[in-house]
């Protein structure tokens, strides 16, 4: 049992360890039940099991949080091993949970969002087919995600890490009869695999250096080092772990799978590809904060990659016409913000944005799903417009989420994004260029989000007359989760009132114990730049950026709607590059996929498989055996005297051998 808990009565610990199991296991049970028997159940039973499991998880996550906060000796992490899982030489891994304030935030965010999305899916998936399969995968995903965030060592975390990857693959390819969907699933699986290779090697390196994979042991050992000790090992491990995070969280250069992942059902995009799984990389970096604090160069890479991704994905989102794909690029961009926060050493701000983003981005996706439902599957924003009259609730909630993501004051995204940007500017390892690029991205974000609102909900209707008359608001199964998420999208930011407004940033104070060792270690690194702008000025700039973005969007897409087309014509080259997403998919196709296909077909298939394996090895074995047999069969003449002669010959030769050997 971990220190800090020693003086606590046994009862409390008993409670928390059981509560944690009760939080993690119901989704697994739900997945098993629906997976094995779901085919025979009615839709009502399936959704009851699925939503019930997610709901139980949420209830026990809340209870665990409450019991944990009642423990004396806070803010020590709570650690409980259930049984030994791997014992091989010095490698010892337990099935153990690690619960501290970071885990608390993650489990609450994950379970609340997951429960709401499960509720929404009841309505959304009604007529889609594969109802029980959907809920099985969703429950399994929730179990794996909770394993990921509660794991107490890297191997167990990796189980969750791969588990969510598997569920992501299954759910992207949910409509497996559509080739594009199954291709997208494979793409996601393979691209994230590149990152996972980095993760495994990084974990192996940590084990090699610190002889343990247990979080607490590794972190304690790293924290005991002076700044600069083991720096190359820590830097390599940090970069390798970050490679895993880059794959999972869709950062440059491995982001290409996320836009394609939109082939999955919309609740999946909301849960897995916006709110939870893709933030696992951020969680990994934040969880390993002490490692990065002792390898500032790795941390600088995290910040730079995050910032560049944020800006890059935002520029692509500017010209997307597919509502969900636009949101996917926006997700990549927002994940970049989270990494920017971590890279600037303000891990708490990164996690804060992770939480607020989970609410408003899943809301955006669910609202987009509601639009899709009304439009009969249409996602092209050019064929929408004026939907606010028919889809009142969807419009209102989408607008709230848009305000939140655009960083409009008093909405959650404003608070979290601002903390990240301020951290990027003024923190010990921050850099001004990170701040300016981040602020520019905030402007772009506001622009493309309001562009989508204008195109979808406002202005004149461009909907097909055929679709127009059956436009309808979704049922309450879908709208109630939207409203709840909209509520969170507004208030989630209030947990951390900014310093510029004489607040205490309570959320950051709450997470401080988790990141204190990292913050302390970072203070020992050389300080790189003078601070000349105060928090008020920084906030002013980000509000200004949002205002400009929103203003331009309204001007171009509501008032003078001819401007975007004129611009697209005048700067046709830039526009083409943007609509083709910088040709990165084409580039990867040319660089990796095509050569791989050619080598596979011309060499691996036609030479290795057909010639070497089929002809030489498989057929060759048979043919050679037949030939030898054909020769040997001549000995079997059926003529008894010839057999006798052979026996005699053998006997004579044997005798000769004996005599010569002993002579």
């Amino acid at each position, binding site marked *: 049992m971990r220190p800090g808990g020693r003086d606590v009565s046994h009862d409390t610990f008993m409670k928390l360890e059981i509560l944690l199991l009760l939080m993690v296991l119901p989704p697994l049970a739900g997945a098993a039940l629906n997976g094995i028997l779901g085919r025979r159940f009615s839709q009502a039973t399936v959704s009851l099991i699925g939503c019930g499991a997610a709901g139980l998880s949420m209830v026990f996550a809340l209870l665990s949080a409450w019991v944990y906060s009642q423990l004396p000796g806070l803010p020590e992490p709570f650690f409980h091993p259930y049984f030994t899982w791997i014992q091989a030489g010095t490698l010892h891994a337990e099935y153990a949970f690690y619960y501290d304030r970071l885990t608390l935030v993650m489990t609450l965010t994950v379970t609340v969002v997951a429960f709401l999305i499960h509720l929404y899916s009841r309505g959304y998936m009604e007529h889609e087919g594969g109802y029980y399969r959907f809920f099985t995968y969703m429950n399994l995903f929730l179990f794996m995600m909770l394993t990921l965030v509660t794991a107490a060592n890297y191997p167990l975390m990796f189980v969750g890490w791969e588990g969510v990857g598997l569920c992501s693959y299954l759910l992207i390819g949910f409509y497996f009869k559509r080739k594009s969907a199954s291709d997208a699933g494979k793409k996601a699986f393979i691209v994230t695999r590149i990152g996972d290779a980095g993760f495994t090697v990084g974990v192996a390196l940590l084990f090699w250096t610190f002889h343990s994979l247990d979080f607490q042991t590794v972190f304690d050992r790293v924290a005991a080092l002076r700044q600069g000790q083991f720096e190359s090992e820590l830097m390599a491990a940090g970069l390798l772990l970050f490679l895993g995070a880059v794959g999972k969280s869709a950062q440059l250069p491995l982001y290409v799978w996320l836009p394609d992942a939109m082939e999955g059902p919309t609740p999946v995009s909301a849960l897995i590809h916006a709110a939870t799984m893709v933030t696992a990389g951020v969680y990994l970096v934040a969880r390993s904060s002490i490692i990065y604090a002792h390898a500032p160069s790795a941390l600088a890479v995290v910040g730079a990659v995050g910032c560049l991704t944020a800006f890059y994905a935002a520029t692509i989102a500017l010209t997307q016409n597919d509502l969900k794909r636009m949101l996917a690029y926006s997700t990549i961009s927002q994940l970049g913000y989270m990494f920017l926060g971590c890279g600037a050493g303000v891990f708490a701000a990164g996690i804060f944005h992770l939480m607020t983003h989970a609410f408003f981005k899943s809301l955006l996706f669910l609202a987009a799903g509601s639009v899709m439902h009304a439009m009969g599957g249409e996602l092209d924003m050019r064929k929408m417009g004026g939907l606010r009259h028919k889809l009142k609730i969807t419009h209102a909630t989408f607008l709230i989420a848009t305000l939140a993501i655009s960083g409009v004051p008093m909405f959650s995204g404003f608070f979290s994004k601002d903390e990240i940007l301020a951290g990027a500017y003024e923190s010990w390892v921050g850099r001004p260029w990170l701040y300016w690029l981040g602020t520019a991205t905030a402007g772009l974000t506001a622009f493309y989000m309001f562009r989508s609102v204008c195109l979808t909900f406002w202005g004149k209707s461009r909907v097909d007359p055929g679709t127009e008359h059956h436009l309808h608001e979704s049922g309450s199964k879908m709208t109630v989760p939207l409203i709840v998420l909209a509520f969170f999208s507004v208030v989630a930011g209030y947990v951390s009132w900014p310093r510029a407004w004489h607040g205490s940033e309570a959320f950051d104070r709450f997470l401080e114990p988790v990141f204190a060792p990292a913050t302390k270690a970072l203070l020992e690194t050389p300080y790189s730049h003078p601070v000349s702008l105060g928090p008020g000025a920084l906030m002013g700039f980000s509000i200004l950026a949002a205002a400009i973005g929103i203003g331009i969007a309204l001007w171009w897409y509501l008032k003078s709607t001819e401007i975007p087309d004129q611009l697209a014509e005048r700067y046709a080259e830039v526009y083409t590059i943007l609509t083709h997403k910088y040709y990165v998919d084409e580039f990867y196709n040319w660089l990796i996929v095509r050569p791989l296909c050619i080598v596979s077909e011309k060499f691996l298939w036609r030479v290795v498989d057909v010639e070497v394996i089929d002809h030489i090895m498989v057929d060759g074995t048979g043919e050679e055996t037949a030939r030898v047999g054909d020769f040997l069969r001549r000995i079997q003449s*059926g003529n*008894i005297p010839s057999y*006798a002669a052979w026996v005699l010959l053998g006997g004579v030769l044997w005798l000769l051998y004996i005599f010569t050997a002993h002579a």
Partner: protein
Amino acid sequence: MVPLSHYLALSVILFIIGAAGFIFRRNIITVFMCIELMLNAVNLAFMAFSRFLGNLDGQIFVFFVIVVAAAEAAVGLAVIIALHRNRESLNIEDVDSMKM
């Protein structure tokens, strides 16, 4: 007293006669007799060594060989009769149905 080498020479001569007959003769009965001849050549060698070395091991072997030879004769003759009934022939070259 007859020396050991004479007995062994006789044994070898008998064995070679038996082996040659086994290989070159075509009549099954003759072949069969040749087998007996070879066995008895070996028996002779056993007995000669047994006397020469002054222990009874060789004689015990001879008993075994005689028993086996008797059993073989019983089975072998039965096979030969069956063959003769089936093929109307005692020529060994007619017995080649195992040949491919």
